[in-house]
């Protein structure tokens, strides 16, 4: 009998604020799959790839502290945000490969009674369920196959680039020029995966405030690509991509000169739908681009 899969969950900030549906659906899917998630309630913000622009050392110390709490529980850290994954895994890589830097960080952590050891793996929930649970097993548990839908995967930069870092965090090997994990997950859920040029491209989220036009064009191009490839909806493992695609369709449409609104699901919501979770458990009421096909599923 296999031990129950248990992870330390780093929720990140978005899941607690602007994407509550992501946190709900993460727990709903974990419960269906029999995965235990222990929330890292002590964790701070990872800095979202911006704090290090201002203060790189502070960003390292704070991320190392977050990892310490997974280490002290003896668990692999699971992230549900691509950018949390990037910042945390990059901190781990930098500390594990540089003894001097690790010592400087640990000197600060010691002041609050902590020590970064490097003993915990850090992986995104998408790769945790693929690597540790298995796509075949997910497929065998599907109650309502999503076979009537063309689903466009949107990978999100910070799960696939830089590939050298990302591929050291999980066993699934992903090529950023032709990623496959999310496509395979769609197929495991019984859906039809849609291929389009922008699936591994940037949504523009991180430049939204300082470069709104660039950000809006990137979102518009991504959604237009999915629409033109006949997708019924999009799916993403990243809550920041989700925010951009689900809430910024207006600016994005203006930037690319066409309407681009379409439903966008979190990866957890898609798996949850296939496994028979209820719409309430998956939090569809929080979407700005209405998820209007639920009746067709159940």
């Amino acid at each position, binding site marked *: 009998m296999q031990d129950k899969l248990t992870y330390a969950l780093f929720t990140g*900030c*978005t899941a*607690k*604020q*602007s994407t*509550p549906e992501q946190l709900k659906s993460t727990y709903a899917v974990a419960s269906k799959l029999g995965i235990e998630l222990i929330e890292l*309630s*002590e*964790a*701070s*913000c990872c*800095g*979202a*790839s*911006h*704090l*290090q*622009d*201002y*203060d*790189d*050392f*502070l960003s390292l*110390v*704070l991320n190392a*502290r977050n990892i310490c709490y997974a280490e002290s529980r003896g668990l692999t850290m699971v992230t549900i945000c691509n950018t949390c994954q990037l910042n945390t895994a990059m901190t781990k890589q930098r500390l594990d490969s540089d003894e001097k830097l690790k010592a400087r960080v640990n000197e*600060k*952590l010691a*002041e*609050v009674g*902590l020590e970064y050891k490097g003993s915990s793996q850090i992986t995104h929930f998408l790769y945790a369920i693929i690597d540790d649970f298995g796509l075949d097993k997910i497929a065998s548990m599907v109650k309502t196959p999503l076979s009537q839908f063309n689903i466009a995967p949107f990978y999100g*930069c*910070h799960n696939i*680039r*830089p*590939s050298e870092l990302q591929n050291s965090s999980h066993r699934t090997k992903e*090529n*950023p*020029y*032709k990623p496959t994990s999310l496509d395979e997950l769609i197929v495991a859920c019984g859906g039809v995966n849609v291929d389009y*040029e922008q699936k591994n*491209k*940037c949504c*523009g989220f*991180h*430049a939204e*405030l*300082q*470069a*709104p*036009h*660039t*950000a809006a*064009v*990137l979102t518009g191009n991504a959604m237009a690509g999915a629409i033109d490839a006949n997708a019924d909806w999009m799916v993403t493992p990243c809550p920041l991509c989700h925010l951009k695609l689900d*809430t910024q369709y207006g600016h994005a449409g203006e930037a690319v000169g066409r309407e681009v609104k379409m439903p966008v699901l979190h990866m957890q919501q898609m798996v949850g739908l296939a496994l028979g979770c209820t719409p309430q458990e998956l939090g569809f*009421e*929080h*979407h*700005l681009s209405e998820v209007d096909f639920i009746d067709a599923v159940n």
Partner: protein
Amino acid sequence: MDNSITTQAVTFDVFRFNSETDYLPYYKKYTLEVTSEEVVLDILNRIKWEHDGSFSYRRSCRHGICGACAIKVNGKGVLACKERMSDLIELFGTSMSIEPLSEKRAIKDMIVDKADFWDSHEKVKPYLVAQIDESPESENLVSVEEHEALLEADLCIQCGLCHYSCPSVEINDDYFGPAAFVAAYRFNADVRDSATVDRLEQINAPAQGVWDCVKCFECQEVCPKDINPIEKITKLHNMVFSEFVALDNVATRHAVGFASSIRKHGMLDEGELVRYSEGTIPMILKHGVVGLKMLKKGKVVPPWKMPKSDKLDEIQALVRSSSTAEF
């Protein structure tokens, strides 16, 4: 390991365009028997030598150092002389497109006009600015540690792969792009140089500077010399603060806002970050409509319900003890 040479038929969809005679580009198909030891440049050569002598591309050193033969295969930026066909076949299968670095800048087939790339370079003064003593009495030595601080930025071959893989460059003509930032970093990190502030003022300006980086990591992924341009972009961000040239604008406040939010809540206060970055009135004007929709859907947490990290005092102690930047 099996070292025998194998052969496979591969179909190439090749971008063809002559800006002097063609109104629009078109694609021409070539099917070639590709051997397992060939690189992309071999394929370009064979198309030219065996199929169409007018097919045009740049190539020179054939050793991955001149940077002339950078193109895109199935959207992946490659140095044609370095990229093995067997790797591409493994990744993409036996059908692939061959395109120039930037279609909108194509002059003839694979040859692009890199004027924008060189213009950006020029603006960051990609050379040493120093008062040189013409008759020194001792050698002007740079230590190993001082040289290591360049972080291999001096290995850039100006091939343009990062520049033309950057989505921000593609959309915003003013944006300098990763290669120019690598050059700016390379000379800013040089102990002999005295133009740091000049360069920082260029790379700190809105639209053209580092703040328009979308953080997609395409530049790091594509660089054939493993220079990691985005790491240098981060270093330049840091220098903007350490050399006190940071402007008080939405971009700098956005970065600084994370530190103040973490100090207060441990977690990020999303709404407050937008307000702090934009200012209250611009926030309402720019984000009010979407913000209201998000509020209705339960996507905005009011200030009095802002979640806080457990052991917040510990986080606050670390922010006090470990902060290295000022704004």
